[in-house]
């Protein structure tokens, strides 16, 4: 049978970085093909090349035997390729229906106006796929799950032969993942080939027929899912000789929760929120949140993204005043923000300049009216050394660092502010295994350090990370903070909590 999708020797570079290095890949019709690899292994690039969004520098892409050439998205679409992006490619101001129609050539007449009856076809297709899609609300008002449904419906409106999904489960709670996979199986049964880009091994093994692993832009292996173990895949992803003792998806299959080690006995309270409420003003609200953070403990806050975690972080960092309730915070708070590239760093600044954010207004870095750049440089050099940042000097521009090294800079800088409290927001999102382990280790160390360690609030959508590091755990749902009893510190129980209030709160 002819392959639904075939890549032959595809190479793609971004500047000096080789994202794909002569990669071969085949997708059969009707199969779900898991595509695994660490961050930066080239998974997303492969999917985007297949979708015509990126042009390969060398090699060929064939869709159902037809060469894609340099035709771009339009040609790929015409050949039946559709892609569901990790950061959805929806126009936020448009409604779901407009987004679907924009993507679908069949929606329009020759004159370029909307076909009569198209709306009915969209609704019928959504019904077939059992997707409850909100078609008339602007996308920006929808939650991530609703957005993903629009994105999937959009991808499946036409005669889709190849469906590419980039980390579709990253935004979903465990129970929602099963619903998504049910839709995918149905689509595959209808004859389409599906590429499922993911980093969680157990999910891929559960859903996929075959699995391909990429590492550093190169093809490593392709195996039937039934014949390969999670451990083999993990080793293929990171390469031999790398100790894999935790981290991301690898950890999930290797045994789930590990007992948190208590360091210094929990000390005095460094931060406290009492019945804090923040009204929705551009961000998600907080409703009656109360919490205490003590020295030497890590308080893990789990939850599906977009339930008020960002607002909570801003309150804890002292950047946002609550509308009601009481807040007691130390004068200075370390805050590792979620969005490293846009919030945690100025990409065009040097490492020193980025470190200066934490110290530029301190008296010990002043000489009269002047900022003591030599002192800042010294601090930055020490940080580069201590955090093991791979950079020649602190005069290196942040934009040339890898994601992991950037995050080490941000983490190290925020440690400078963390005498009492550190707020870490998804600190390892998008990092490779090595960097993930390093950053987690540092966060663990600072909370367990002797003397007067800070209290740490770890906000993360990665359940494994929360389970691995936290002494206490709470779940954030719809702006409320729900403490999780110690005996429930396992993925199933917390996953259930993450969804419970959503059901209760749903109309």
């Amino acid at each position, binding site marked *: 049978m002819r392959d639904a999708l075939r890549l032959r020797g595809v190479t*793609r*570079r*971004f*500047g000096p970085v080789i*994202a794909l290095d002569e990669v071969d890949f085949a997708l059969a019709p009707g199969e779900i093909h898991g595509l695994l690899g660490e961050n930066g292994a080239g998974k997303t*690039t492969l999917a*985007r090349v297949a979708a015509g*969004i*990126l042009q390969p520098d060398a090699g060929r892409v064939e869709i159902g035997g037809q060469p894609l050439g340099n035709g771009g998205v339009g040609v790929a679409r015409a050949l039946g390729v559709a892609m569901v992006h990790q950061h959805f490619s929806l126009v936020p101001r448009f409604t779901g229906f407009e987004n679907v129609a924009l993507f679908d050539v069949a929606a329009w007449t020759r004159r370029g106006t909307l076909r009569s009856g198209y709306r009915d076809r969209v609704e019928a297709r959504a019904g077939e796929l059992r997707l409850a899609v909100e078609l008339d609300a602007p996308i920006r008002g929808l939650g991530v799950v609703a957005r993903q449904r629009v994105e999937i419906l959009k991808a499946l409106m036409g005669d889709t032969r190849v469906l590419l999904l980039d980390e579709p489960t990253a935004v979903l709670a465990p129970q929602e993942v099963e619903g998504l996979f049910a839709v995918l199986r149905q689509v595959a049964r209808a004859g389409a080939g599906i590429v499922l880009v993911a980093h969680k091994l157990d999910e891929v093994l559960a859903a996929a027929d075959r699995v391909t692993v990429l590492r550093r832009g190169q093809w490593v292996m392709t195996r039937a899912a039934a014949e390969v173990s999670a451990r083999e895949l993990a080793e293929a992803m990171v390469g031999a000789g790398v100790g894999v003792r935790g981290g991301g998806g690898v950890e999930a299959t290797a045994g789930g929760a590990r007992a948190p080690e208590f360091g210094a006995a929990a000390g005095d309270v460094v931060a406290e929120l009492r019945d804090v409420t923040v009204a929705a003003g551009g961000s998600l609200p907080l409703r009656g949140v109360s919490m205490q953070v003590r020295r030497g403990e890590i308080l893990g806050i789990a939850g599906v993204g977009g339930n008020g975690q960002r607002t909570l972080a801003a309150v804890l*960092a*002292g*950047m946002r005043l609550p509308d009601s309730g009481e807040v007691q915070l130390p004068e200075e708070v370390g*805050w590792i*923000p979620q969005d490293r590239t*846009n*919030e*945690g*760093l*100025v*990409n*065009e*600044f040097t490492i020193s*300049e*980025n470190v*200066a*954010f*934490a110290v*530029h*207004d301190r008296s010990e870095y*002043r000489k009269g*009216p*002047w*900022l003591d*750049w030599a002192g800042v440089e010294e601090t930055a050099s020490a940080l580069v050394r201590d955090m093991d940042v791979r950079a020649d000097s602190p005069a290196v*521009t942040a934009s040339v660092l890898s994601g992991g090294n950037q995050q080490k800079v*941000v983490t190290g*800088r925020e440690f400078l502010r963390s005498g009492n409290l550190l707020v870490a927001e998804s600190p390892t999102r998008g990092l490779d295994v090595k960097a993930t382990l390093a950053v987690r280790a540092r966060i663990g160390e600072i909370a367990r350090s002797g003397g007067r360690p800070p209290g740490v609030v770890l906000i993360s959508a990665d359940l494994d990370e929360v389970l691995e590091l936290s002494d206490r755990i709470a779940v954030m749902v719809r702006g409320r903070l729900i403490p999780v009893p110690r005996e429930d510190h396992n993925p199933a129980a917390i996953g259930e909590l993450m969804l419970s209030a959503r059901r209760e709160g749903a109309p």
Partner: protein
Amino acid sequence: MSTRFRTLTPALTAATALLATLVVAAALLALGGYPPGDAFAALFRGAFGTWDRFVSFTLVRATPLLLTGLAIAFAFRARVWNIGAEGQLHAGALAAVAVAVALPGAHGLVVIPATLLAAAAAGALWASAPAAMKTGMGVGEVITTLLMNFVALFMAQFLVQGPLREDRGVFNQTNEIPPAAHLPDLIPGTRLHLGFLIGILIAIALWLYLTRTPGGFRLRAVGASPRAAEVSGRFRAQPVVWLAFLASGAIAGLAGGVQVAGVTHRMYEGLSPGWGYTAIAVALLARLNPLAVVVTAIVFGALSAGGGAMQRDAGVPEVWVRGIEALVILAVLAVDRSWQALTSRGSRG
């Protein structure tokens, strides 16, 4: 903005851009039927031909460009798109004349500082309206500062035709300011006045502020990424934006005051041939570096000083100079982009 400009050594970019401008301008001049060689030679002689041409014409004309160029560079560093230097300059000139005329008997040590401070204050005031509209209502400053230019122009027209019109009532201009208010000469025997030195001192001060002080660091951070400044720096972008507007407006206002106190000694319609706009080219060619603005302002001062000679000696209308200014801006942008395209394929994807 500022940091895009780090990719290529600034001087090299500027030189490449000037060379490209020269080539394109030569082609256009030839197309228009003028011998480019003659035009450039006349232009060069007019600007640098003699010591007096250089000091009394090029440097004198460079002075308002230096100040407005610094105003633009400082604002752009904070990513405040102040296109309103022209209006702020007019506001400053009007205030300078009003104050100087109102202090007829005062000593120069009193009246000169008072005049210049009034000019700076008026410029800052003129910039405060767009600043308030941007920070308070989210109205982009590009359109508002532009519109404010026209308001300033017509206000100046109104004042010199009416309330501030000279007592003789002959021309649409104000009375001459008292001699005590005239800026002293910088180099005896030339027309170069204290204003040029003031410009250089401000350039040094701005450079020190941007590179050596915590405030300057904050301003550069807001210019590079307001969001990162707020989250990583824990400071609000708004006060920084206000500072950029007010300082930029004050320096542009000072340009008007300096021109009145140093050169024209009175205010009239059409005081500025568009210095506030030329300043954008001056600042960009300097890659928004205040010290480099001193050099680029002299380059544009030379263009201005040589323009008259070009018209007189080579028959090329002086308006060509405006066109050449635009070519400089476009050349800087294009050279910068081409360099980026050569060094990387872009990271999108």
